[in-house]
């Protein structure tokens, strides 16, 4: 088994001021992986249509061969490439797809991003070890839940977007030894809890090529209130609050910042550069006030959630 597949922990959590956060980016092609890994990303994650993952098909690699080349690229650059398998594996295909995940780990994937508890048991029973990240879709909202997943083999969690730093503080306990990954919240925030939302949504769309063809996404559009008091938009915290959350998560010791993949390559590129800029500002040790001041300029006009789902390749 290649060394990368045996590894079950990355660099320890470092909550000292000035610590460097790993930068993880979701990619769909070898070219995208090369682009990000040579411009500041430490890790990429990649999906295949044949392995259940929470995304539209256009967010996946077109072939396994290209994904394997990406693994080799990451190794050459001494960086990481993760497999995203963050959906529940349907029972009918479970043995086949779990075996496919195991094969990719054997081939050199640095780890697997998961949601399905049965997959963890599959690996444990076979004595296979890898670095498991629990997706936000896994609904881990407290320290006890974190222990629940750690006992089952998870080494990193992606913190749910719907937790404030004050609420999440106990999960940063270094004794737990978990790596904690956060989204750059001021630039990427989902209005409702993703895995528990079945409203019309970009996530449920396939190959949307023109913005005019997109259905209205319930979480983005105005709704008419039945009490006659005008319109209603599903609420979310404002940009300044989200900048403050990102600031606090960094200072609590978040070890990784995630830029989510999307079918619109240009939009992901913009998100990457803006997220990287905000992350580097934190690493420089700027004050909360300075971070919020500069951050608001960087994140303005950032919430183009629907536009993420217009397929554009580069």
């Amino acid at each position, binding site marked *: 088994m290649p060394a990368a597949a045996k590894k079950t922990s990355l660099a320890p959590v470092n909550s000292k001021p000035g610590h460097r956060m790993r930068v993880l980016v979701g990619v769909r092609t070898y070219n995208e992986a090369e682009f990000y890994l040579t411009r500041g990303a430490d890790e990429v994650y990649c999906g295949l249509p044949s392995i259940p993952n929470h995304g539209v098909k256009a967010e996946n690699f077109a072939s396994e061969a290209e994904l394997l080349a990406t693994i080799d690229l990451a190794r050459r650059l001494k960086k990481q490439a993760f497999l995203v398998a963050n959906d529940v594996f349907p029972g009918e295909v479970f043995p086949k797809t779990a075996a496919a995940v195991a094969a990719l780990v054997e081939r050199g994937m640095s780890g697997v991003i998961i949601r399905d508890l049965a997959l963890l048991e599959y690996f444990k029973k076979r004595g296979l070890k890898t670095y498991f990240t629990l997706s936000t879709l896994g609904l881990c*909202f407290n320290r006890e839940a974190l222990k629940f997943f750690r006992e089952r083999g998870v080494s990193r969690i992606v913190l749910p977007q719907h937790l404030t730093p004050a609420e999440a503080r106990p999960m940063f306990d270094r004794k737990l030894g978990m790596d904690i990954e956060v989204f750059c919240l001021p630039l990427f925030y989902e209005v409702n*809890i993703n895995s528990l939302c079945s409203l*019309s949504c970009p996530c449920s769309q396939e190959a949307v090529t023109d913005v005019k063809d997109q259905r209205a996404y319930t979480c983005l559009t105005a709704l008419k209130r039945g009490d006659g008091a005008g319109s209603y938009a599903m609420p979310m915290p404002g940009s300044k609050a989200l900048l403050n959350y990102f600031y606090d998560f960094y200072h609590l010791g978040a070890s990784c910042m995630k830029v989510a993949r999307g079918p619109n390559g240009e939009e992901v590129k913009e998100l990457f550069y803006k997220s990287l800029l905000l992350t580097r500002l934190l690493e420089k040790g700027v004050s909360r006030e300075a971070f919020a001041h500069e951050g608001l300029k960087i994140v303005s006009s950032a919430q183009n959630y629907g536009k993420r789902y217009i397929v554009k390749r580069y």
Partner: protein
Amino acid sequence: MEKALLTGRCAPEPAALKGLRWAVAGSEFCQNRLPGPGVLKELRLRGLKISLATSLLTDEGLAAADKFIAAARRGGLLDEVIVNDWGLLARLKKYRGLRLSIGRLLATELSLTERAWTRRFVKEHGFVSAEADEPDLARRLRERAGVKISWHLPHAFKAVTTYCPFERHFKAACGFSCEGRPLKLSNPHLKQPLLLVEKAYLTPGASARPPAGAWRLVVRGGPI
């Protein structure tokens, strides 16, 4: 078939409980809505079996729910907990004889996972039933998890957040301004309107017809 009223945080008027055997107190969608002091005792005095619905929980919410459950068990005032949080599930191992039901949020996971694993997990953790409000979900839960179905009517769950849509905050303490104020929402793109209740969006009337074989019906009552 057993019948229950979703009583939320407060004890309902006695007339609302006529002919019922169960009260489902608390909430699956908001951790702030634990029943008030004396509510469980009042429900028990009316001869009801009591289920406590719980939601996704932060550490603070988990501590509050754990403390509430411990006190209710000591007082003999709790027969069942509806679980929607992995952390709470781990904590509940310490209680013997407490009936557990898979809540509608965890049901999404446990209705899709591989059958053999799901059956083992459900048995190991002592789940005997699951809450559902959508026919496919109920069917999958019966087939994969092998549990009885507790059916919620008349509204079906569509989405949830932990950011309070009524008060616009994440706080663990609130003014309960959602109570008695379900808000109907619509626009031309929605096939059916939505109903905002607590921190969840529901489809009104979508689960009015229970599936055959459901062991319990849970009806949403007021003021919720």
